[in-house]
């Protein structure tokens, strides 16, 4: 277990390092932030002063080494635009995104697994076919369009749900959350559903395929021969077997929910870090972009680690030391 964790941390370190080089060079290649930041009427002396203040006058590799040196002590530099610490800026926005992503994940699980089980147990029935038909829609409709439709129907036409912002929040362990207030819940419902739509379809398909396969296995027939109730056969024998692939995929998808909440956050004006990223890219605010991506990569690493641990809990045949090889 310890060896496994150590190896994982080292692998992650390398991934983060490579990542930071790529982003650094990438943002440098896009353009010079000074062109955007400085008043267009500024003279060359002023521009030089600004460039020097941000450290942009030095060669790229020197800039990178300085960044790296500071990064090891946890400082990812200050935002070119806001002047404040990039890490602070992102961490300030992160709770909103995390809340949205987890709400979407919960919706995907709570709706996806029962619907998938139902469709898997009754593949020929009208209800099973309807579920599968809808899941194809969920896969193929673009997120932004569905988001706009949701706003049009539920905010504009019916006026039931608010179309932007987080609503009122309550602090939980020092972090603001929306889901604990009625107003916040109304605000998060549409964006979370919008973000979850694709994942619901994914979970339905995975669950259905797994269920259909598991129901043909001898262990299910043996469970029936033992006289177990159908609820126990499906709820314990089948579900525990099909959870293994679902956990893997959802783990990876949680990362993408967090990282790519950008579209949903833009449509519903959700004050998360996805929106911050878009703004920072357009302003070439390199420290924020680099810090954001490094945080996202770190999150992916942690999520994968949790998935691996969950895996070994679900499937006794998988041992963590074996997974490290």
């Amino acid at each position, binding site marked *: 277990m310890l060896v496994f964790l150590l190896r994982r941390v080292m692998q992650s370190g390398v991934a983060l390092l490579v990542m930071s080089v790529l982003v650094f060079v990438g943002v440098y290649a896009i353009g010079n932030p000074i062109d955007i930041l400085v008043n267009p009427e500024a003279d060359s002396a002023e521009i030089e002063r600004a460039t020097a203040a941000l450290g942009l006058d030095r060669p790229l590799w020197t800039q990178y080494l300085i960044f790296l040196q500071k990064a090891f002590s946890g400082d990812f530099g200050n935002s070119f635009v806001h002047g404040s610490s990039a890490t602070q800026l992102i961490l300030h926005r992160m709770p909103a995104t995390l809340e949205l992503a987890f709400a979407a994940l919960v919706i995907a699980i709570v709706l996806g697994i029962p619907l998938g089980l139902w469709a898997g147990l009754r593949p020929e029935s009208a209800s099973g076919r309807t579920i599968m038909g809808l899941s194809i829609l969920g896969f193929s409709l673009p997120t932004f369009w569905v988001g706009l439709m949701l706003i049009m129907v539920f905010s504009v036409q019916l006026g039931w749900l608010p179309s932007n912002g987080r609503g009122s929040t309550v602090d939980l362990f020092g972090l603001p959350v929306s889901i604990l207030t009625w107003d916040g819940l109304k605000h998060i419902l549409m964006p979370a559903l919008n973000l979850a739509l694709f994942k619901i379809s994914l979970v339905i398909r995975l669950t259905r395929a797994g269920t259909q396969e598991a129901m*043909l*296995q*001898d*262990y299910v*027939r*043996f*469970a*029936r*021969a*033992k*006289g*177990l*109730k159908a609820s*126990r056969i499906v709820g*314990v*024998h089948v579900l*525990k*077997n099909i959870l*293994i692939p679902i956990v893997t995929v959802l783990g990876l998808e949680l990362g993408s929910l967090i990282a790519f909440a950008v579209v949903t956050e833009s449509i519903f004006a959700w004050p998360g870090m996805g929106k911050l990223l878009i703004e920072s890219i357009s302003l070439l605010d390199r420290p924020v972009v680099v810090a954001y991506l490094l945080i996202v990569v770190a999150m992916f690493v942690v999520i994968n680690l949790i998935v691996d641990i969950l895996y070994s809990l*679900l*499937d*006794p*045949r998988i041992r963590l030391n074996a997974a490290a090889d």
Partner: protein
Amino acid sequence: MTEPLPVLDVSHLSTHFATAKGVVRAVDDVSLRVQSGQILGLVGESGSGKSMTGFSILGLVDPPGKVVAGNVLFKGQNLLTMDPERLRQLRGDRIAMIFQDPMMTLNPVLRIETQMVETLQAHQSISRSLARTRAIEALADVGIPSPAERLSAYPHQFSGGMRQRVAIAIALLNRPDLVIADEPTTALDVTIQGQILALVQRLCRERQTSLIWITHDLSVIAGLADQVAVMYAGRIVESGPVQSVLAAPLHPYTEGLLGAIPALHERGEPLRAIPGATPSLASLPTGCAFADRCPRAFAQCSVPLGETEIAGDAGPRRTRCWLHSPVPAPMPTIQR
């Protein structure tokens, strides 16, 4: 002579599969009886419908398969028309089943303990600790060393033979009246096969449990069963007391099966194989399905026939063959 009420009385059971190629008659007009404490050997080649007969009795046929006719009387109650919830209560409690492949029958992600305790708790309100104690006893009965420790193991931590012992322990947990064992030794090494066979035989004899032992191996039946039923292409072609059937088979197919067993004292002699192959269950002839391969076939064999009962020294015997039909046969219909 009036016989006591049999534990299991199957009559005219038929299970069909509707497939794209037509109706597959996996089980066709099967009748068999098991008396209390008796062991019935159900013998047949792969695909003869013997496993499906077992599944049909327990109501475990998966679609597109369907039991289309017949009665399955368990202690006088018809399992085929029974309320599903009552059938569930009987399954695993009064009638248990052991499957062919021990690698597949136990759920890989659940502890042996879970799989045993749930079998007890599905049929009686019993505390977890008492269920555990019962499970440990059951594991000890089937010869699992240090059963209390092994209870918390997962199936993959057992060998094939040990897994089959666990499956047998689970099947016998609730002291059923009838056990259907579907080729439980086929997937195991020869030495383990003998052990499992002896184990099941001993446990069933001790507890007066009736047993249906499904196998393709007539030599296994010889030492184990009281009665034997031989299946061919979904039908029972011959049944009766095991010593009479093995000593003087009535049906040419049984004769062929006996001839095909290699004997240790006949080294070097060519094996007598039955020529040809089993017919497709989707397109069976109207008469005897074995006629094409039968050395003694005659014109009459293409006419449909039922079972004939013949008195024997050790008890009544039944066969489905025109050679033994006492009824004057009608003229064969013109073949098209």
